[in-house]
């Protein structure tokens, strides 16, 4: 604002020379007169913008007003050669841009041209990359800006090391945090549970059916010998305190037979309705909300033995929840239904699993003690 106002009083105080001619022998500026050889040269330094600079327009306006360069120089309070260099657009020999730009603006006001236009023309001529229009169009300018940005982002070597170290530290801390927090909803046992020295372990071992027997028991028609053995094992195990809830589904004759043998009063309705028979006193009953349809030859049996408390979630082939509950240590759970089953075991090391009588290794499917696996695909 004030720089626009500045030249006005100067113009008033310094009236143009009536002669209207530039005098090279001007006593004030005579020493500063430019080299005559260079005076008429066209002033575009190589590699600059081809758009017209401010020099020609200023010169034309000055000549139209009949004013000499010396008058302009006197008004601007600068040596004549600066005015001549501006007109010749020899910007490389002019003072710093902050001065030259101001001289051009003041000169433009003196000769009644628009200072902003002249100043913009100067900027475009001297530093095309700086003007907004050019910046949008020129990839080189953008590349230059990117180079500046990349230089700005480049840290000194020690800072890079500290930065990298900090990042690694943060990642490690985050990893530790996740590792500690992830299984927080699953009770953490004091020991692995496999070597639990309680008296229940032998019982668990006893109740675990022989693989060959298991195979037989899941057959649609089980051999009589197998059925004979199962109640015997159960009869031994249940009084010993085993509290496994056994869920029998009506589609399995073998399972039904086993239940019949175990629980006498229920043997009349093995195939009529889904039921839950509880082994041992005081055990909770687990209602089956979604009984599986019996399709002969399609059912598969899952047997869980819990040596530690563990959350069990089993989905059948249709995605229906077959079982989802926290099972306590010592429980035994048998499920059957349509394969494939999707299993989630909250504490895998506290469970032994058999699928159709075959033991299933849970370790390959276990992460942070949580096993997620699909059986019977």
């Amino acid at each position, binding site marked *: 604002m004030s720089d626009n106002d*500045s030249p006005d009083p100067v113009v008033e105080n310094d009236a143009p020379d009536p002669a209207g001619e530039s005098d090279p022998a001007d006593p004030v500026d005579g020493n500063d007169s430019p080299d005559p050889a260079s005076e008429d040269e066209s002033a575009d330094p190589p590699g600059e913008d081809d758009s017209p600079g401010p020099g020609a327009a200023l010169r034309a306006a000055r000549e139209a007003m009949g004013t000499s360069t010396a008058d302009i120089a006197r008004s601007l*309070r600068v040596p004549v050669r600066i005015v001549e260099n501006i007109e010749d657009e020899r910007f490389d020999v002019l003072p710093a841009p*902050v*001065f030259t730009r101001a001289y051009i603006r003041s000169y433009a006001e003196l000769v009644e041209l628009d200072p902003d236009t002249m100043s913009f023309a100067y900027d475009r001529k001297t530093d095309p990359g700086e003007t907004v229009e050019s910046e949008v169009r020129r990839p080189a300018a953008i590349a230059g800006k990117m180079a500046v940005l990349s230089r700005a982002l480049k840290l000194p070597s020690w800072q890079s090391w500290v930065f990298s170290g900090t990042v690694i530290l943060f990642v490690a801390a985050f990893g530790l945090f996740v590792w500690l927090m992830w299984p927080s909803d699953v009770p953490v046992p004091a020991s692995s549970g496999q070597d639990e020295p309680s008296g229940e372990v032998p019982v668990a071992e006893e109740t675990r059916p022989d693989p060959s027997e298991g195979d037989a028991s899941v057959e649609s028609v089980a051999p009589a010998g197998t059925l004979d053995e199962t109640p015997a094992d159960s009869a031994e195990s249940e009084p010993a305190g085993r509290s496994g809830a056994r869920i029998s589904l009506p589609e399995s004759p073998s399972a039904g037979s086993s239940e019949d043998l175990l629980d006498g009063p229920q043997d009349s309705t093995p195939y009529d309705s889904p039921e839950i028979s509880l082994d041992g006193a005081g055990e909770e009953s687990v209602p089956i909300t979604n009984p599986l349809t019996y399709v002969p030859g399609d059912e598969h049996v899952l047997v869980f033995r819990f040596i530690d408390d563990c959350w069990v979630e089993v989905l059948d082939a249709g995605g229906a929840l077959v079982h989802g509950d926290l099972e306590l240590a010592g429980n035994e759970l048998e499920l059957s239904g349509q394969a494939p089953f999707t299993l989630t075991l909250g504490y895998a090391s506290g469970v032994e699993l058999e699928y159709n009588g075959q033991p299933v290794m849970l370790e390959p499917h276990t992460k942070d003690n949580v096993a997620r696996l699909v059986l019977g695909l």
Partner: protein
Amino acid sequence: MFKAIRGLFSKDLSIDLGTANTLIYVRDKGIVLDEPSVVAIRDGNNQRSVAAVGSQAKRMLGRTPGTITAIRPLRDGVIADFVVTEKMLQYFIKKVHENAFIRPSPRVLVCVPCKSTELERRAITESAESAGARDVRLIEEPMAAALGAGLPVHEAWGTMVVDVGGGTTEIAIISLNSIVYSETVRVGGDRFDEAIANYVRRTKGSLIGEATAERIKQEIGAAFPLDEKLEIDVRGRNLAEGVPRSITLDSTAILEALQDPLSMIVQHVKTALEQTPPELSSDIGETGFVLTGGGALLRGLDTLLSEETGLPVVVADDPLTCVARGGGRALELMDEGLDSDLLLYR
């Protein structure tokens, strides 16, 4: 160690801790903060707490109840109230790092007046450190102003810069990255406001506040007769009647009001030119000198100085932010390992 880690998440700042305004320049981002250097302090139950900082606090100047005091912690370019300055800096640094994950600990370059004493510089350094800066460096204001204006300070060529700030006017002649001559005049925008308020009281018999005086200066203030006379209507308390009355002022009256502080600036600029070594004087005589700072926006100040000295006077582009931008440039040069002698302390 923690400061170094926190520093990685902080930005390098250049702070123009001015009497009137505080500006913060962030590398690669430009000016990110431009707020008045005003803090509103609430006094209650023998406890002092910060009620507002910056523009919000400035609106309270002269309009506060008894429990709140709006103060300017810097006077004449230096710290007048250490604790409040620290709080203000803390607030500004935090504001610049609004999205920071952890508490910022930036490297800070603060611009200080040339003639500030060792004690005043120490106060600024400690204040910035207490506000969370991990590394505080100081640069003289005219040097920063020259860098911000784009002057070739590194060349063997004399350049002169006159930075008219809120509290002080700094005059410096620079060559080869060093200040050859410098002068600090305790005249600036504040003194202009004060002169206007005194003039209105003397000639119109009315009292006006700081904020009104500043508005008058910005809207019709002039240092040289203008082609077109500007006018403004303001309200002040009439001393005789004790009630608010409207007053009309014009630019000629304000020019008259500003004569005293302006003549002090002119006188010191002339003194600086007299004290300049002949070679540098010749350089300045050819190119002229540059005006920076908020005072450079006063209408006709460049014309006045040009008339009085006979030299071309150039107002820098965006003169208000020159010092802060120059500080940012100094930080860049420092990182590039160049021109580290620009700084006062490391």
